[in-house]
Structures are given as structure tokens and as C-alpha cells.
């Protein structure tokens, strides 16, 4: 989608003189057409975000609204000095890195298979969309019940766990179950994006490499992957930001027990369950800022790679 944005603003396309009547008319028509979408998007994001920024400066609890008082940056100090905030951030980052890495590998393998397969193509492509279509809450339930030690099947299928092993009894196994549901649900999305990227790798180049005697692994790492950089970047960026917002699975599967809270979950709990709008708003702002940091880091990381790739060729 990033590539699309770049082409959409390609200045080379704008060949008309900037001040002709026609371009002025186009400008005003376009503004009228775009206005409803823009207003609506800003109304529900920018405005509430500014309000969160404002509320975060107050000690404000809905259970005692009259006691609202201005406290400056105290809420931020409280959040940032609390181990719980860092613990949930660490959880979120961990979930993001592990799930996206696993999804990238499995998603790519799936994309390779789907790219190759000729028979049953429709069946495979259809079934890959099933996890995408299943509601996240339902996927959370399915996996929670599957891992359950009283009614699930995972313990009896896995050779290395005792039959009464309680997956939701401690931190690591709970996190594993949460990540399993996340990975199951979103790998198909990843593989579809990668499949589209795979389709753009030129067959001629692969054939040439084959003729030159390149092995399968050499072709994968020297031809296929470098030519798919843009598609991989888009897939990773979108999935990573999506994973960073993880909430539904955790709410359903552990409700934050055993220290499995994500930063989204902590924010939700402060605002909706405890009615602490002041500190909750501070957390909202911090969550928003951390998403920006994650996006920035990923874009930077990949840009370096893209520049390297250009120098090589």
C-alpha cells in the first residue's frame, strides 16, 4: 500500500499548467469529493486524540468527577515510572516480534506452495481465507478451549506435555497460547501479500539462474527474496503494527492473568474498567506514540535495506 501512495502523488503525472481554469475547477470538485471522508476520519481520530492529550494532564476519575484537578505531567511520570507499563510494553513488543517472524516464515512457505500449485488452486486459495474471515474473538475462544486442560485436545496430541498440563497457569505457556491464536489468524493475510509479491518476480530471471547452476537456496536468497523486498516490507509493516495493537485474543484467553497484559489491554483496563480517564488518557497518548516509534523503526530499517539493494545492483 505504501508503493501505491508513492505512485499516487507522482509529480510527473501532473502535466497540466497549475493555474488554468480547468485545474482550478478540478481542485474545487476534488475538495468537495474528499471532504466527507477526511472530516469523518479526523473527527474520530484527531479530535479524540487531542482530547486525550488534554485529559491526560488531569487527575480525573469518572467515579469522582468533581475532584478533577490539573496535575500537569504527573500521569506520565506515574505511568513511565511504573514497572507494569514497561512489562506490558515488553509483552507487546515480544508478541509483535515473535508472531511477525513466525508468520513471515510460514506465510512465505504457504505463498511458495500457492504459487506452485496448479490443481486445486481455488480450494487452497479459498481455505486460506477462512482464518482471515473468522472473528478474532472466536479464534481466541477456539484456541483457549483447545489448550484447556479439562476439555481441550492439545495436551493429548502433544507428546511432551502431561495430559493435565494447565497452559493458562503460568506466564510462558499462556503467552504461547495467545501467540498461537494470533499466528493462526493472521498468517493467511501475510501469505496473500507475499504471494502477490512472488507473482512479480520474473520467471526469466529464475530460469537464467537455474541455467547458471544456482541451487534452490541460492535462487531463493539471491533472486526471489531481493526482488520481493517491497512486498515483504509492506507485509511486515502492516502486520507488525497490527500485532502491536493486540487486544482481543488476550481479553478472551487470559483476561491479562499471569502478567500477559498488552499495552492496549492495560489502557483499556484503566479507562473502561477503572474509569481512570486521566491516567488512562496518558496511557492512550503513550500507546499512540509507541506505535509511531514502531512504525518509524520498521520503515527506517527497511529503507536502509532498500538503499543497500540499490547499491548492489
Amino acid at each position, binding site marked *: 500500500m505504501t508503493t501505491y501512495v508513492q505512485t499516487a502523488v507522482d509529480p510527473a503525472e501532473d502535466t497540466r499548467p497549475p493555474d488554468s481554469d480547468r485545474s482550478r475547477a478540478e481542485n474545487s470538485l476534488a475538495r468537495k469529493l474528499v471532504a466527507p471522508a477526511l472530516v469523518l476520519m479526523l473527527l474520530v481520530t484527531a479530535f479524540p486524540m487531542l482530547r486525550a492529550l488534554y485529559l491526560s494532564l488531569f487527575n480525573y476519575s469518572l467515579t469522582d468527577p468533581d475532584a478533577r484537578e490539573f496535575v500537569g505531567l504527573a500521569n506520565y511520570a506515574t505511568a513511565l515510572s511504573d514497572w507494569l507499563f514497561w512489562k506490558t510494553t515488553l509483552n507487546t513488543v515480544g508478541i509483535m516480534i515473535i508472531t511477525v517472524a513466525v508468520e513471515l516464515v510460514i506465510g512465505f512457505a504457504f505463498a511458495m506452495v500457492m504459487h506452485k500449485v496448479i490443481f486445486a488452486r481455488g480450494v487452497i486459495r479459498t481455505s486460506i481465507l*477462512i482464518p482471515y474471515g*473468522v472473528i478474532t474473538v472466536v479464534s481466541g475462544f477456539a484456541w483457549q478451549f483447545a489448550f484447556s*486442560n479439562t476439555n481441550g485436545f492439545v495436551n493429548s496430541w502433544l507428546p511432551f506435555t502431561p495430559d493435565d498440563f494447565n497452559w493458562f497457569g503460568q506466564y510462558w505457556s499462556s503467552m504461547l497460547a495467545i501467540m498461537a491464536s494470533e499466528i493462526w489468524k493472521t498468517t493467511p493475510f501475510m501469505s496473500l501479500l507475499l504471494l502477490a*509479491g512472488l507473482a512479480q518476480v520474473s520467471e526469466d530471471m529464475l530460469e537464467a539462474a537455474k541455467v547458471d547452476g544456482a541451487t534452490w537456496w541460492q535462487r531463493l536468497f539471491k533472486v526471489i527474496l531481493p526482488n520481493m523486498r517491497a512486498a515483504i516490507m509492506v507485509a511486515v509493516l502492516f502486520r507488525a503494527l497490527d500485532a502491536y495493537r493486540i487486544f482481543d485474543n488476550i481479553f478472551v484467553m487470559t483476561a491479562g492473568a499471569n502478567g500477559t497484559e498488552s499495552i492496549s489491554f492495560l489502557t*483499556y483496563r484503566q479507562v473502561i474498567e477503572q474509569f481512570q480517564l486521566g491516567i488512562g488518557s496518558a496511557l492512550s497518548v503513550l500507546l499512540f506514540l509507541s506505535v509511531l516509534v514502531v512504525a518509524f523503526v520498521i520503515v527506517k530499517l527497511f529503507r536502509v535495506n532498500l538503499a543497500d539493494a540499490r547499491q548492489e545492483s
Partner: protein
Amino acid sequence: MGKSLKANLGTILGCALILIWCLLPVAWIISLSFKSQEAVRVGSPGFFPSSGGGAGWSNYSDVLQDGQFRQAIFNSIGISLIATLLSVVIATLAAYAIARLEFKGKKFVLTTALVIAMFPVVSLVGPLFDMWRAFGIYDTWLGLIIPYMSFTLPLAIWTLSAFFREIPWEMEQAAQVDGATSWQAFRKVIVPLAAPGVFTAAILTFFFAWNDFVFGISLTSTERARPIPAALSFFVGDDPFNRPSSLLAAGAVVATVPIVVLVLFFQRKIVAGLTAGAVKG
């Protein structure tokens, strides 16, 4: 010969793995929904209902007779459909402008959409909760439709503008040269070409709205507007300490089947829509 057989075997194995991956959890929740509540209460591990532990369709009839559940389904259908319809209309206007017209601020619109698509939804829940209560639209359909619309707009705008860029707009002029009025040219030539894209955007948008959970649990408090994912998560049954998992599984199946059928039916369009914005250009 031997090599191609090996490669084919790999592909077949890969296909089998994909199918298992996609279908296993779904098969599991369906299987669970046919276990009797008694069997689940005493604990019945295993994939399939153990002998005598089956419940037939009774979980389904229980779920469908539940007033709260039916109301939640009704809410979800109504809210998602209205949000989809409005969002697609507004996104079509914007996407047409982006694909077809040159104007100042195009980059701003696209960047805004991009940022919103990445927005951490939970960070808006607090202020929206507060604002909606002040406006009196907390726990109403409208209170959910507005956030669903603005959060589906970026997806719809991308998908649609990617589709619209592919339309050969010169055909419109060609029709006009052939004597059609500009309205006729637009309606007879462009609308049929744009319709599949609009439809795809509508399906993806509907998906998003149906899937939403964060707004569903935080901007509602009663069954008046609570959508199905939220209702499922609050579903406790008769015994609050023992979640009725087989009943819940039946509810989950009922909530998921329509959307999965939709997916299966329109899979080509969905794949095109998901990848159009991402890689074309």
C-alpha cells in the same frame, strides 16, 4: 522424472499442511459445539465428542433461543451493514477524486488514511467513551457506526482508488465523442467498470465492522447495541464460574458461518482487494 515427482510431492504435502492449518481450529470449534454441556462440565478432553458425550443440535437451539444472542446478531448485522454502506459511498467519492483528479492536498488525504489504518484503536476508546456519553450516543447503534465508518474508510479508499486507477477513463470520452451525454457516458461505461471494485471494498469493510471487538465492548453497556463479538465474550450462561464452552462454541459457529460463507463466495474479489492497494503501482 524422479526430481519432478519429488517436487510434486513437496507441493502436495504443502497443500495438505495449508488445509490442515486453515481448517483444524474451525473443525475443532464445530466439534466442541456438538459436545453436551454435561460432558464438558465433567471434563471431556479430546478432539471429538466422546461416546455418549454428544449433544446433537441442542447447543444450537439453546443459543438461538437466547434473546440476548439474537439481539446481538441483529445489532451486528444492522450496524455493520449501515456502516459499510455509508463508508463505501463516502470512500467512492474520495477514491474517484484521488484516482481521477489532480488536486492540492491529495498527499495529505492519503497520509491521513495511512496513519488512521495504523492507529492503535484502544487509545481512542477513552476519549470516545467520554465524548459519546456527553453527546448521548453511548450504547447506541450510531455510537458504533461512526467509529466503524472512520476506521473502514482508509481500507475502502485504498482499495477503491487502486481499482479506479485501472479503469480506462478514456472510454468515457470515447463514448462522449460517439454522442453520449457525459452523464450517459459515466453511467453506461464507468459505473459497470467500477462496480466490482466498489463491491470488493464493501465486503472488506463489512468484515472489519463485523470483526471489531474493542469498540464493541467499550462503547456499549447493554444489549441495546452490543455486537456479536462483544456479546460472545460476555456470555456466561447459568453458572458464571463455569463458562459453558460448548454453548459458546455453538454461538461462535453461528456468528462465524455467515462471514465465512461470504468469504468463500467472494474469495476472488477479496484476494484482489487485499492485494490491490498493497502491490499494484
